[in-house]
């Protein structure tokens, strides 16, 4: 569902002059990412400073409304980090979240909110480099589309 790379290309020119630092609401699963400091370390330092972290028992607990509320409350992006598909502690929580958030992504696009503001990614606790890369690519997408309000 992500098109970060495309977005980056089309709006790369805007990034140059933009001093904007996105404010991100991070929802992370307590099974694959139990440590908030660890999650924080995935984000660029400037972004991490302004981000809020919400630990979920499972991404299956993630309601679409949480993301909508975050946007309404002044966040520029919502990042959901959960276990790899197949690794969910509750078997299918992350899959359910995925369906729900894919729908949300579609609704956001229909209502004029860049769906790139919503990032849903699966973290690999044994490969922090990859996780960090995914997160940074999400942040780049946010930088490209600018502040929400």
């Amino acid at each position: 569902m992500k098109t970060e790379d495309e977005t980056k290309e089309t709006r790369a020119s805007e990034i140059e002059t933009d001093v904007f630092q996105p404010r991100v609401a991070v929802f992370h699963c307590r099974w694959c990412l139990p440590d908030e400091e660890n999650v924080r370390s995935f984000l660029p330092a400037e972004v991490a400073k302004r981000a809020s972290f919400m630990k979920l028992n499972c991404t299956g607990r993630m309601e679409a409304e949480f993301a909508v509320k975050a946007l309404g409350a002044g966040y520029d992006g919502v990042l959901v980090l959960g276990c790899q598909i197949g690794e969910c502690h509750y078997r299918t929580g992350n899959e359910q979240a995925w369906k729900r958030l894919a729908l949300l992504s579609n609704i956001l696009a229909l209502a004029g909110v860049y769906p790139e503001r919503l990032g849903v990614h699966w973290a690999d606790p044994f490969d922090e480099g990859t996780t960090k890369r995914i997160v940074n690519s999400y942040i780049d997408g946010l930088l490209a589309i600018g502040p929400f309000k």
Partner: protein
Amino acid sequence: MTEEVRDNREEQAREIAGRLLTEGNVDGVLALLHVMDHVVPHLFTSREELAHLNISGHYPVAGVAERLLRRWDNNGRIAVIARGCDERHLIELAKKKSVNLDRIKIVGLACTVDEAKDCHCVRPFPTEVEVGRSVGKVDYLDHFALGELIRMDIAERRKFWTQIFDRCIKCYGCRNVCPLCNCEDCRLEEARWVRVGEIPPEYPSFHLIRAVHLADKCVGCFACERACPMGIPLGKLHQLIRDYLQSVYGYEAGRDPDERSPIQIDVGIGPDVLQGLRRGGED
């Protein structure tokens, strides 16, 4: 369709309602009543009243049925003269466990093509038609300008919807009129979800929380759009969402009480999560 067919439907409906009342299977028939130049939902309990039973006008009666049955708790059974949308509402309410379909006798009423066009309805008929004749599925794209909304790019849509949503006077008409917006605790009323006491309500929380909440329940009756005093095209937004669910999952709300939504949304709410969000958003 001509006036003749409409008259005929009215008579058919009266006849069936009369039979149901006489046979005593139901305590009342919920349908529309003609008073003066208006049409209102009414529970018919005697044959004498049936002369004023009316089938024109589109007031969503499923919500009334749900509220009545809830109020009369465990006893009572009613018949509902139900258009396609009314039946789909009842089916969705049954999925939500808000009504027990055993307590409702659905008398299916088919809409005319004109009525369908009026409501931008794709499926203007109930599963079983007892009154009128089904005109089959209608292709809404012929008469319904969704194209404009689809063609816009994200930035244009943002401009369109922020301007349109900015008109909102928070009357809650969209929610009040919707039979499926019957949750006891409504998030649109809670200060932690949507700031209270100001208009317009904050963007995008009010409208998108409702959109998300109804995404897989909306049956496309357009009552919300009709009830909106500020002309916000809520029905069209929901139609587009319905199209998404149809195209990705082949899912349509209100078809069958045993069909499960591909999206499960109703999870109990955790204040813990929200608290973190609020702290973060304020400073």
